[in-house]
């Protein structure tokens, strides 16, 4: 099936996935206009990354859980618990900051083992297990902290969420290092895309025409470089952005290119069929929840570092933001469909909307209404596009 596909085909082939990018661009443009350009100002862009990074980290794990046909309602409480453990270790016990990080990650893994045990081995629906987890881990957070906030963290710990890599190469008014990272990202993307294209041709599959390919790469390059330029003009490259980028690349690869990832989709699409095809469903489910626990711990570390404290009420309702991000990003309610990159875009849509509305001075209650409506519309679009596929048959 060698040949080239045109633009229309590129978009319509998977409306579910491409629709989300179009929506994202639209929302960014809308809020840029509504905020008079403040949204894309260097300072705000940096702020946006810092403020929503933990939701995006949670969304990565959540979309995998949702694809497998489960849900995790406990991540907000786990964020609080892991942050609390880190705080107790570092602030109360006075141990080095990296011991706190290890302790938090270990706590997240234990939480995952606990929930994975009930979901994968005992077979209780994840909704119930994680609903219970939401209560259990919130309670444990309060006990760990004796119901008071702990602060401040040492500055090394704070750097995780508030730190920037800048000045490494100096720069006249803007950070050269940040720009270098941006250029490297563009080169990496271009090389990777080119290799995929070459491999496709080698296996005689269809590819988009060369000029379309060039336009695509140039467009992405322009966005990345513009973004890097903005960051370079503010405070430089946030450490948390590097962390986030690494997680997106790793989990994108895990979900799309590994046997483990494929098994997640197979289970969500048809559990019985997956079992009868030799998928070790118990193992995959267990690992998924351990993974979610660890990612929630990462989010917990970032959140506590950013707020420079551990609070009993931390992470309240984070699970709902993460779930919303996954669904807005095209995950199917019944499982089997969804992508990490989609969840990230979904999370960014939520972030841009919240941030934009904050800049505009819209109060919290209205913000909630708007975000709720967007969530419903996103899933309605998903349902509609599924029906469309069904009637096309």
């Amino acid at each position, binding site marked *: 099936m060698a040949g080239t596909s045109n633009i229309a085909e590129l978009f319509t082939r998977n409306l579910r996935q491409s629709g989300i990018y179009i929506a994202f661009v639209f929302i960014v443009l809308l809020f840029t206009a509504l905020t008079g350009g403040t949204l894309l100002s260097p300072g705000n862009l940096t702020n946006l990354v810092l403020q929503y990074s933990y939701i995006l980290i949670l969304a990565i794990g959540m979309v995998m859980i949702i694809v497998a046909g489960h849900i995790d309602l406990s991540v907000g409480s786990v964020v609080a618990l892991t942050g609390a453990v880190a705080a107790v270790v570092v602030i109360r016990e006075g141990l080095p900051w990296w011991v706190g990080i290890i302790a938090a990650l270990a706590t997240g893994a234990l939480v995952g083992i606990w929930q994975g045990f009930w979901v994968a081995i005992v077979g209780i629906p994840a909704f119930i297990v994680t609903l219970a987890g939401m209560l259990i881990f919130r309670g444990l957070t309060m006990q760990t902290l004796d119901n008071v906030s702990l602060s401040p963290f040492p500055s090394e710990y704070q750097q995780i969420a508030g730190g920037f890599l800048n000045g490494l190469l100096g720069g006249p008014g803007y950070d050269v290092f940040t720009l270098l990272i941006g250029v490297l990202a563009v080169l990496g993307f271009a090389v990777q895309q080119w290799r995929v294209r070459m491999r496709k041709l080698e296996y005689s*599959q269809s590819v988009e025409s060369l000029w379309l390919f060039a336009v695509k790469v140039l467009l992405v390059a322009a966005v990345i470089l513009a973004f890097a330029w903005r960051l370079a003009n503010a405070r430089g490259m946030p450490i948390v952005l590097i962390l986030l980028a690494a997680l997106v690349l790793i989990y994108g690869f895990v979900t799309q290119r590994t046997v483990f990832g*494929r098994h997640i989709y*197979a289970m969500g699409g048809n559990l019985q*069929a997956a079992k009868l095809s030799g998928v*070790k469903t118990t193992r995959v489910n267990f690992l998924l929840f351990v993974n979610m626990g660890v990612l929630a711990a990462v989010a917990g570390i970032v959140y506590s570092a950013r707020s420079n404290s551990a609070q009993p009420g931390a992470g309240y309702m984070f699970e709902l933001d993460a779930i919303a991000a996954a669904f807005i990003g095209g995950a199917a309610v019944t499982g089997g469909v969804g992508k990490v990159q989609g969840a990230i875009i979904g999370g960014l849509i939520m972030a841009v909307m919240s941030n934009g509305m904050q800049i505009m001075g819209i109060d919290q209650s209205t913000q909630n209404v708007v975000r709720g409506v967007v969530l419903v519309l996103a899933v309605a679009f998903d349902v509609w596009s599924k029906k469309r596929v069904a009637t096309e*048959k």
Partner: protein
Amino acid sequence: MSDHILEMRSITKRFPGVVALSEVTLSVRRGEIHAICGENGAGKSTLMKVLSGVHPSGSYEGEIHFDGDHVSFSSINESEAKGIVIIHQELALVPHLSVAENIFLGNEQSVAGVINWHESNARAAQLMRRVGLAENPITPVGHLGVGKQQLVEIAKALSKNVRLLILDEPTAALNDDDSEHLLSLIRELREEGVTCIIISHKLGEIASIADSTTVIRDGATIETIDMHADAGTSPAVSPDAATHPDADRPHIGEAPVVVGGSQQHSAALTRRIIRGMVGRDMANMYPEREAEIGEEVFRIQDWQVRHPTQPDRMVVRDASLNVRAGEVVGIAGLMGAGRTELAMSVFGRSYGRDIRGTVHMHGRPVKIRSVAEAIRHGIAYVSEDRKRYGLNLIQDIRHNITAAALNKVAPRGFINTHEEITVAERYRESLNIKAPTVMSLVGQLSGGNQQKVVLSRWLYTEPELLILDEPTRGIDVGAKYEIYSIINQLAASGKAILMISSELPEVLGICDRVYTLAEGRITGELSAAEADQERLMELMTAEPETAEGN
């Protein structure tokens, strides 16, 4: 023409880009059983949707006359008010509600919205007697078998004062006993004046029950055959084992013998229907094959399986069987005989508990504790219900094909997607899967093509033993032939094939050797030469000699 209860004239129904029905004409006489035959996708269901108002009037061209009146329904409610009731293949019953509640669902026996339970249950009991369903009206429907659920559907139809009953594949999920019961009920309803339209793939059934048959192909009426008149064409039909039991075998009473006209006559009718459906003369429904049988590949000995939730129920008892290279071995048994349970318990203990017995591959005993181990030992199992147990319908063909042998395209756990596509393309071509690309979603394929995707998946595991559980269920005649050809090619390439089927003609048509299964026991083993439908049926219904000995 008052002797016609229904006339559909020149019905044309267009979907965006497709003409589903073009100028279809259907005339059904009052009080007859009228069969509609056609391949999957020929337009049978669309025609029934037009008739019942699912596709409202105005969305199609043509006229419908019911009982002499020109009618135009815009919803199911309107057609039901006239007494046209359709029973779909997938039953529309609520498992947790009682039989009575289901019968009157949407039509509750109530006064001012308050349900009169005595009235409901009494009337339900009455209706249940009419359909021969000996159950308590307050039994939850989920506790009944599929056969009885089908009767509940009919009782529900009767409660609506049905005058024209449409049954879509009513016996597809039923065993022979339940089918026979259902068919005789339909005959009784005919005596009571209910006209029936029956859509079926089972041509033997149609030959036995229908008064006339309309054949539809590619959205057009091919012909309407009067089943009582002369078959008319092709007198030179060669007798084959499938429809012509040896004359000198003793007749078995319970066996579902084709009634209505001579064997010769119904065979000729069947051929005529098939010719109409596929547009070609299929002299032989089963492709020829020269069996070259080699060494034993697979053997189970003293296999025992207990029910997963009722440990005192033995589902398979002391079963021993073997399959040799290049051989197609059939397992014939009625529903509930333990066929699927036997296969799935062998396939990595996917069914049952307390499984005992030994499995030998190539003469050596092997331990198989999981599906992954079964696959590693070269066993593949194509399940009976491909939508539930076989396919990931929301994924594309490619992912479905590599699902069971993903490691082959994923050295060190990383998937080579390009190699994966190449593999999938190879199977798409060699098995003739009709889809534009391997990126097409499996849910959008027809039954036959879906089955080929499942077969591809298991072929890619390079099995030595392929267990096929009802491989042609719900597949139209043309695709069946293709599936049979694939099975033959596999056997010719030296694979051992174990085929479970409830269609005896199919078992006789393609197997070299047949085991019969009754109540979890192997009751007989016949070579293709010694087997015929009646002999098999006799063994399949054999009573176990020893009473309950766990």
